[in-house]
């Protein structure tokens, strides 16, 4: 699951770079040549890619938590196996992305420590609660679905190691999405109680999915470094529109209602009314929709979301509990763990 958000570093300063090298670098990108870890790159590019890959890695690791909490409760052997494998995949994505980040100059230890001390961030969507099994279905369907859309465009970027990682990850995300779709379909073909549970979970996750792609980009985004350097290749609003075009009709087909909701500070829905704006424009093929609550988005991203503390403290607890194992591994004669 999860995708990288906008590159987090401010990306203007290239003034100190060698203009010839910079021009050559930008020409390579314009020519569609992939940049490799050992290639010359502007400092701002290195910092930006590192921030992006690290944020993405953090998101995979934290993203394992909400679903991980449901492994022990999965309602059949098949679901239990699939959910465990899914969460394991996300940890694997984190591992791959930390490796990409390591190559850009930050050690894994530093990254894991910065994550648990709150110095670095992870994707906002994992700060929301998953109180029922249907939430797990929604995460795999909507959030993995959104992640695939985002990561497919990221696989079209310019940084070789990140692009190759996206391609590998996306194959697994496709499985997660399929399994999510199957879970939602099963629940919506089930008892009235299961359908109700599913609609309520959908109400919780629909606005989170819309926020998934981040707020609207600046008007001149294409000419600013993240897009000019193909660190990202599509505007957030355009991704969001594609998401709605794909998922609003799919939800309706399944018997779900796209609602506009209000939530309390625990992330639970306090009111839900059908989104009157939801409509297909036949001419453009685009669905219009009501924007999510962007004030809430900023509140949550600043650390005041329903589950920020919970997720981070569990991650920190696991980091601390595992400290002796990491110390043992690095103090032993060999510095890598035995092969699986």
């Amino acid at each position, binding site marked *: 699951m999860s995708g990288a958000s906008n590159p987090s570093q401010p990306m203007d300063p290239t003034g100190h770079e060698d203009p010839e090298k910079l021009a050559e670098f930008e020409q390579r990108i314009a020519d569609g040549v992939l940049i490799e870890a050992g290639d010359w790159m502007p400092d701002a590019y290195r910092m930006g890619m590192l921030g992006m890959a690290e944020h993405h890695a953090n998101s995979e*690791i934290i993203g394992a938590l909400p679903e*991980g909490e449901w492994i*022990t409760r999965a309602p059949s052997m*098949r679901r239990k196996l699939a959910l465990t494998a899914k969460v394991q995949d996300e*940890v694997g994505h984190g591992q791959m992305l930390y490796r990409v980040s390591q190559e850009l100059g930050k050690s894994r230890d530093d990254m894991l420590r910065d994550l648990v001390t709150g110095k670095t961030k992870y994707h906002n969507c994992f700060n929301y609660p998953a109180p029922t*099994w249907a939430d797990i279905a929604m995460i795999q369907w909507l959030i993995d679905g959104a992640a695939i859309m985002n990561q497919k465009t990221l696989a079209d970027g310019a940084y070789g190691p990140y692009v190759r990682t996206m391609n590998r990850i996306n194959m697994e995300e496709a499985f997660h999405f399929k399994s999510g779709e199957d879970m939602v379909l099963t629940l919506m073909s089930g008892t009235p109680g299961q359908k109700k549970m599913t609609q309520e979970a959908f109400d919780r996750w629909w606005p989170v999915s819309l926020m998934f792609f981040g707020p609207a980009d600046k008007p001149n985004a294409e000419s600013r470094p993240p897009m000019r350097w193909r660190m990202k290749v599509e505007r957030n609003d355009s991704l969001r529109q594609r998401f709605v075009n794909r998922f609003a009709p799919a939800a309706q087909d399944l018997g779900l209602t796209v609602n506009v909701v209000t939530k309390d500070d625990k992330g639970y829905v306090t009111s839900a009314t059908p989104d009157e704006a939801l409509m297909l424009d036949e001419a453009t093929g685009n669905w219009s929709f009501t924007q999510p609550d962007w004030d809430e988005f900023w509140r949550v991203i600043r650390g005041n979301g329903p589950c920020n503390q919970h997720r981070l403290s569990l991650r920190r*607890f696991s980091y601390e509990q*595992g400290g002796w194992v990491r110390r043992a591994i690095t103090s032993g004669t060999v510095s890598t763990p*035995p092969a699986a």
Partner: protein
Amino acid sequence: MQDMLTNPTASLILAHADDKLMLGHVQSDWTGLGPILEEDIASSAMAQDDLSHALTLYEYLGNTYGLDPDVIAFERDPADYMCCDLTTQSDEFDWANSVVKRWLMAAFTQIAIERLSRHDDADLVARCGRILPEQNLQVTHLERWIKRLAQAGPESQARMQAALDRIAPLAGMVLEIPGRLVNDDDGYYCGREEIFKQWTDQLQITLQDAGLAATFTLPDRNVEGGRRGKHADHFHEQLTEMTEVRRIEPGAAW
């Protein structure tokens, strides 16, 4: 269900399946929370193997007794679960407990499944044949970790020894005669002493290499614990959690 629960061979298979279910259940919960990403991934893979092994044995019993494997896995009376006391032990979020417990179990199960694979039912033999290679990998992997952690300095040595001290006294109960409804007879679970010796001899070699110490005892045939449905409180909590979603809508598809 009752036919299965009163049959000695079925009970033996069920005991192994329930061991695998509980081991997989507890270990899969570590996914995303392991001490090192690489080992998080590897141990989750082993948890999935254990759950798959449980499933293949439940499927075998399901075919034999006309039962849904999920019903066998999730819907028995707590007293009809035959997992041994070791497998339901909580890890208390301590990796040393997890490694020691899984190693003791994996080494035992390797021997037990190997024996089961000499059964005369071809389907059961084939299923055991698919379990064994993965079981062998688990033993190798976990043995390596036992030695590795025990030899990595005083801190981890002490933690491993402490886990062993905590867990080893329960270990012999893997050879408790399973099935509270099964009539005990002398032919049943033949070679109990022999299995115990084979298993603990193997354990002692690794312990010696690792610089750890433990004694194991084979409990009396009539001692009753998990395999005969006398479970510790934490098993009941685990089962309640495991069936929480299913119980919302009994009989529904999920």
